[in-house]
């Protein structure tokens, strides 16, 4: 299970389509998406409603507080929307320390309103938590005491009785409609494997129909095998401000193609301590340890491989990582940590063969980067794997130090730090 944020456009698209399918509710929602490559004429052809109503436009990139950054256009006609987007497409903004360029917008009908409601459905271990408030909107946090919550246990039906306390503050005539809406949203939530669905705020349009003004959604991407068809063509965008280097993107695509796990995040392209660690648990601990030793600034990357990738996959992975680790030689000593705990079933020799093949190929770059390699690993066939590593050092003229499971797992971090420090004095 892995929760992935989706764009507001997708949340609304899915809500509109599936609330109609599951609950027969026809919401007055319309959404259009604009990216750098969007042809406005074509957009208009595909979404004729853009011509007939006043519009709202805002960036759709998984961050909030857009109004405060002059990123929301209200009550515009289509030409106004076009101008608004053109003036802001590509603009670099800083949202709480995450910098990134704006490249995706959502356009939807402008709905004048007085009342702003809050609705949030969130998955937790034992069920779903539903939160509702009549005082939604930008001040939700200030009004948090007005938000009412209920926890619905897994497999429990959402009854009117259960929901009643949440809606007790509403005028009587609104309650049936609101009850139906919340129940319907929960149906969509469950049927589509949402893990979070938040509308802050939603309102009732002039016909009295619920209309989400702002919406956030998260899906469980592991449910793709059963819900993927219902999701349709959907991307899981990276968190705002997080761009992928070509290497990261390549590893990401490798990861998608294999049953094993291959992860790479570059932290500092000029860092002098790099990691290539086996195991989800161990990889985090290696990064922790380098940071604890006072070398956080020098940590080049976070990397993890696990789930028994085959030799070819490990080779591709290691080659990409080595390219990054040796890309900025500066004469000063560097270290690569080929670490890991004691594997349960991953064949150490097989994965090491892939890494060794990559190291052999990149030997020149490794030498040019003045890089030493520290290896520590255990598990099936580790003796053979470590022996291969030992032999490689002499063969390619690189210092490769190899440690067995008799030593502490993170001991090589200290060695790497000392090695890097040796130059700094």
């Amino acid at each position: 299970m892995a929760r992935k944020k989706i764009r507001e456009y997708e949340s609304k698209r899915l809500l509109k389509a599936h609330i109609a399918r599951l609950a027969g509710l026809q919401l007055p929602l319309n959404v259009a998406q604009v990216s750098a490559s969007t042809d406005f004429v074509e957009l208009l052809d595909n979404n004729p409603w853009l011509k007939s109503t006043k519009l709202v436009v805002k960036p759709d990139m998984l961050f909030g507080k857009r109004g405060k950054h002059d990123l929301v256009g209200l009550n515009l006609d289509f030409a106004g929307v076009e101008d608004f987007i053109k003036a802001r497409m590509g603009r670099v903004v800083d949202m709480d320390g995450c910098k990134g360029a704006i490249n995706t917008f959502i356009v939807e009908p402008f709905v004048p309103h007085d009342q702003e409601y809050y609705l949030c459905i969130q998955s937790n271990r034992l069920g779903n938590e539903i939160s509702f408030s009549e005082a939604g909107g930008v001040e939700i946090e200030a009004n948090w005491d007005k938000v009412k919550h209920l926890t619905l246990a897994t497999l429990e039906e959402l009854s009117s009785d259960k929901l009643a306390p949440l809606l007790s503050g509403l005028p009587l005539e609104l309650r049936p409609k609101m009850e139906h809406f919340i129940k319907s949203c929960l149906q969509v939530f469950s049927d589509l494997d949402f893990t979070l669905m938040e509308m802050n705020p939603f309102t009732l349009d002039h016909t009295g129909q619920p209309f989400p003004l702002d919406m956030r959604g998260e899906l469980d991407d592991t449910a793709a095998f059963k819900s993927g068809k219902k999701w349709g063509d959907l991307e899981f965008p990276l968190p705002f401000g997080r761009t992928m280097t070509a290497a990261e993107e390549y590893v990401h695509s490798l990861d998608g193609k294999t049953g094993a796990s291959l992860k790479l995040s570059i932290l500092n392209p000029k860092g002098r301590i790099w990691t290539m660690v086996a195991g989800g648990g161990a990889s985090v601990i290696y990064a922790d340890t380098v940071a604890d030793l006072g070398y956080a600034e020098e940590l080049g990357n976070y990397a993890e491989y696990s789930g028994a990738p085959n030799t070819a996959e490990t080779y591709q992975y290691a080659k990409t990582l080595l390219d990054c680790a040796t890309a900025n030689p500066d004469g000063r000593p560097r270290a690569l940590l080929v670490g890991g705990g004691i594997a349960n079933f991953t064949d150490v020799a097989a994965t090491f063969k892939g890494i060794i093949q990559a190291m052999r190929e990149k030997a020149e770059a490794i030498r040019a980067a003045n890089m030493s390699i520290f290896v520590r690993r255990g598990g099936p066939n580790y003796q053979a794997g470590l022996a291969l590593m030992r032999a490689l050092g002499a063969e390619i003229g690189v210092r490769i130090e190899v440690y067995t499971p008799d030593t502490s797992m993170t001991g090589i971090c200290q060695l790497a730090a000392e090695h890097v420090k040796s130059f700094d004095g």
Partner: protein
Amino acid sequence: MAGFGQIFSKETQAIFYNWKPNPVQRMLDFDFLCGRPTPSVACVIQPGNDGGFQKVFFGKEEVAIPVCGSVPESTKLYPRADVFINFASFRSAFESTMEALQQPTIRVVAVIAEGVPEADTKKLIAFARANNKIILGPATVGGLQAGAFRIGDTAGTLDNIVACKLHRPGSVGFVSKSGGMSNEMYNVLSRTTDGLYEGIAIGGDVFPGSTLSDHCLRYQNIPQVKLIVVLGELGGTDEYSLVDALKEGKVSKPVVAWVSGTCAKLFKSEVQFGHAGAKSGGQKESAQAKNAALKEAGAIVPESFEGFEGTIKKTYDQLVADGAIVPQADVPPPSVPQDLEAAKKAGKVRVPTNIVSSICDDRGEEPTYAGVDMSTLMVGDRGVGDVIALLWFKRQLPKYATRFIEMCVMLCADHGPCVSGAHNTIVTSRAGKDLVSSLVSGLLTIGPRFGGAIDDAARYFKDAADRRLEPDEFVEDMKKQGIRVPGIGHRIKSKDNKDKRVELLQKYASKYFPSTKYLQYACRVEQYTLTKQANLVLNVDGCIGALFLDLLNSTSLFTQAEIEDIVKIGYLNGLFVLARSIGLIGHALDQKRLQQGLYRHPWDMVLYTK
């Protein structure tokens, strides 16, 4: 999970869902190391299978583990097996786990698959809680009780198990998310304490079936566990239920804990680490906050992972000094014979191969025929002639040669429904037999009287031509030996009504072959035989035989010894068999398409005689 203590013992038996030879073998090896009298796997479920067994080693002997076709069947047959080890894929893990939980005899289910949807896991959790059952996982390697029972691959190789003293119980209860780190920690515990009593990896998901605190509460109820060690991870709030349990005094045994992921603050935007649940999110889910909360609640928390080992050792030594722990004695493990596969990999034994093959290799990224990969064959203008050249002759032949091979295949593909091969195929197909039987029944007629003449023609022409026998000498010589010259003679064709196929081949060869020495020799033989009788023409077998000799000689790609070999071991007969298979398949299919009934030879077409 209220009131749970020990969930495994030396008598525990498991039902293993979805046959995987390695983990099952590892479980039985562990059993043997622990001195268990019976294997820990009661049966294996292979969905849809009805019965049978799988062979596995139990120590030095092989045992048969029964196979069941469904979950209810397995629990009915093995009611004492209360652990269900589910190796189903993430797509089907939910259904099989739910079915297992519904069985009254099953108490613990371990779900190995990674990628089970959150909503599915939540349903499993709800059911397990309502029915007082335990789920381990999903996305876990499982767990083990030292000296008693092991789930699947937990703790890896036998060497590792012995090195970590897991074949006999120690005094430490351990729980973590990570399977890999569990194994690493078993190693650490073997260095710093008297070893593990029980260890569980709960899995890396956001909502594991059972939590760190669930197992700590169990360890509290197990008298043999004197020290609890916990390795948590950033993301989620599971550690806080342990904090609460500590604060409320529900866990009163000493707990040494560390939550990894303190590095998350280095990342500017949200990061998904290796485990699905390990996601940097709010402050409360950070490693720092959780370590602080655990420390405040009374757990012994080191400054860093580096300090974890030392802290465990210090705590353990103190417990021993206080008399709270009496260290468990070491027990020498029995030796388990090494598996051939593992010994081979480690270079400890050598085993002769059973088969040698020199024409192809299917081990790489794409199959190769005689070193030529599939892409090369598919993208160029290569044909089936090239494939035959590679797989039969182990080399690439020039275009004129492969084209000639293809012409031979085309010419020999069929010769009507009446010849013996086609006839047999038709009769067999009409008897309701399958395609392969029909084809083979036709092929079996190929031999000295039907279709086998190409090889012989080549052999005799080669021998005679190489010995420079004059055609008349050759023919008369054969006659003296009572052998009909193979490749000469036709039932219908004659001097003035030559076989069109032969003409086409001759025309092609004279245009493209660098030399046609053997064909010329065969023609001279024909000239002589035609003086004897008008139907003693060079037939298609003779022509192919002679031209093949020319092909082999003229390409200069074959040594004389190789040519001798090719003629001797029956390559050319192979060409006929291959070609005629095309026609025979056609006949077999034709009869089925036409829905022809059983063929019975009419009585009046048989001479009944004494």
